[in-house]
């Protein structure tokens, strides 16, 4: 599922890994494909509500595998639609319950209106996180997950409790598009470091020129909702 430019997340991880000196083997997994043997990082995007239904069955089938990988501390990034389906369930407006894989202790309920616009959140490790949200589902966090950020401007998970996204082990989940990683390279480098350390034991980063990211962040912080 890729409809809101979440490809940017994949591209950023691929390029930064290359710039750090690693060869990247990018595998595209779509519903019905054989799940790859070895995986070092998993990235999932958002989709329309109608796309959600289509991938749900397939996701449940590979759910056990994803649980194993998460327990093994494989870093994962899940945006929007897959963030919701990594949780316990999504309850639609007409009371229909779409079951998730329960990897994240979260639940999502259809909301009365779409939450749309620029958003800024804050996380102690990553600093300010900037992006763009566009979702109607309202997500509520259980006790086994931490929020990814505290909302400074925008709606976040549900517009009520000032949380945005979720963290569990090395999984980062969020509603933020923009794409998320280009303007938040600290999160990209977190995922990269976890993957490399897990695979090779240590990670020696090179210095990447993030001036454009820095300036784009400054602009994003000033834009209206």
């Amino acid at each position: 599922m890729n409809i809101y430019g979440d490809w940017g997340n994949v591209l950023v991880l691929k390029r930064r890994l290359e710039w750090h000196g690693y060869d990247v083997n990018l595998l595209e997994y779509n519903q019905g494909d054989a799940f790859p043997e070895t995986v070092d990082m998993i990235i999932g995007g958002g989709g329309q509500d109608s796309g959600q239904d289509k991938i749900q069955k397939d996701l449940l089938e590979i759910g056990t595998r994803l649980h194993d990988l998460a327990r093994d501390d494989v870093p994962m990034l899940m945006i929007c639609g897959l963030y919701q389906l990594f949780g316990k369930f999504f309850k639609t407006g007409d009371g229909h319950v779409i079951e998730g894989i329960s990897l994240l202790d979260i639940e999502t309920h259809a909301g009365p209106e779409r939450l749309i616009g620029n958003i800024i959140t804050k996380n102690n490790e990553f600093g300010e996180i900037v992006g763009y949200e566009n979702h109607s589902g309202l997500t509520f966090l259980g006790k086994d997950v931490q929020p990814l950020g505290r909302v400074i401007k925008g709606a976040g998970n549900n517009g009520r409790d000032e949380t945005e996204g979720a963290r569990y082990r090395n999984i980062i989940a969020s509603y933020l598009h923009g794409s998320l990683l280009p303007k938040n390279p600290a999160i990209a480098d977190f995922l990269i470091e976890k993957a490399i350390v897990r695979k090779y034991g240590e990670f020696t980063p090179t210095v990447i020129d993030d001036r454009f990211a820095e300036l784009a962040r400054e602009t994003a912080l000033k834009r209206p909702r």
Partner: protein
Amino acid sequence: MSKPYVTMLGKAVRYITRLRGGGSALPGLFVEKIDPNFIKRTLAGLPQGIVVISGTNGKTTTTKMVVELLQSQGLRVFTNRTGSNFTRGVAAALLGEVDNKGNIDADIAVLELDEAHAVSFVKSVPPRYSLLLNVMRDQLDRFGEIDATAKMLAIIGKSTTETVVLNREDPRVAAIAKILSHQTVNYFGLSPELTHLFPNDDEMRGKPVQKTTVQPPQAEVVLKSLEGNTAKFTLGKRMITTTLKLQGIYNVYNAAAALALTEAIIGEDMDDEKLVEALSQITPAFGRGETVTIGGQPLELVLVKNPSGFRLSLSSFKPAGYATMIAINDNYADGRDMSWLWDVEFDSLKNDGVAEVAGVRAYDMALRLQYDEILISHVEPDLSTALRHFISSNASVPKRIFCTYTAMLALRRELSKITNVEVIS
């Protein structure tokens, strides 16, 4: 309020806003406020009725083509040619055309309408014909989801009283035929050899969408081929071959849409010779590949609003020999979300690089290019400063600017200070 009175007031506001060099839609907004029925009443008497053109990409260019093709057949056409495609834009354009009694001298009205505004418009003023172009990911921050946009187009189709012309190659648009029972449905389409040039958003990433094995419906107009600037179309049972002044395959496909609509309106009375002559003379709408001359060198403005449009523009306008500038704004009319830039591949600019990156979101664009490893000479968010720098640093070569909607309007204003730019009123 009486009709002549509203008209006079509206015209007065139009005159005053023009004196102070104001925007084109304000007088329309004013008339809308004091007389919500102004448009409906003024257009009601047109002998050939009203035509509505909507969709994500190509509305302005296609509307311009339809107007010129209908004029070639002798019709007097009213249109909102400002590209101000909200209802108030229509009202503003009407104010420029009506006489003081509020009457309009035209046979038919051809209106370009933004999807959301078209929905409220057709509910009060049902069109006789509609042309539905495509549904692409664009301005999702306004409309939510693509499927919501498709529903808006379906409402336009359903409100049409006679003929609905649909894009056969866009699955969401073609599906609208299923809900139309009272209307004649006509299609425009592509020959199978050309369809790969128009990937839809579902096919952008991941698996290609499963093609249905169902025989596609017969299309009244098919774009058969485009070689250089020579295009071949089938029009019913006839074949039309013509050279075009339009650039870019998507503009030429819009011509197929315009032909299909013109055929639906004129029918058997069509004068093919005049039609082809008019088609060959059509130039792009403002900011859609429009060219101005600066220091003896051409400068092209190419509007980009969404990933599919940007990709098509990059593949249609070859960068070799050109200095390239990209100007990205994120005002309401552009869409606030920058995600779309990440669904465009900029590899085609790798050899020549990008001379200038500008606009409110210049650094977002620069960041995007960085990840495609494309060389950037200069970044300057301020459009006026950037334009001057771009022109002076690339004085002796042809230039091209890819720009979002409000960036395009601002750049045209700047350009009009230094060269001849057609005034759009």
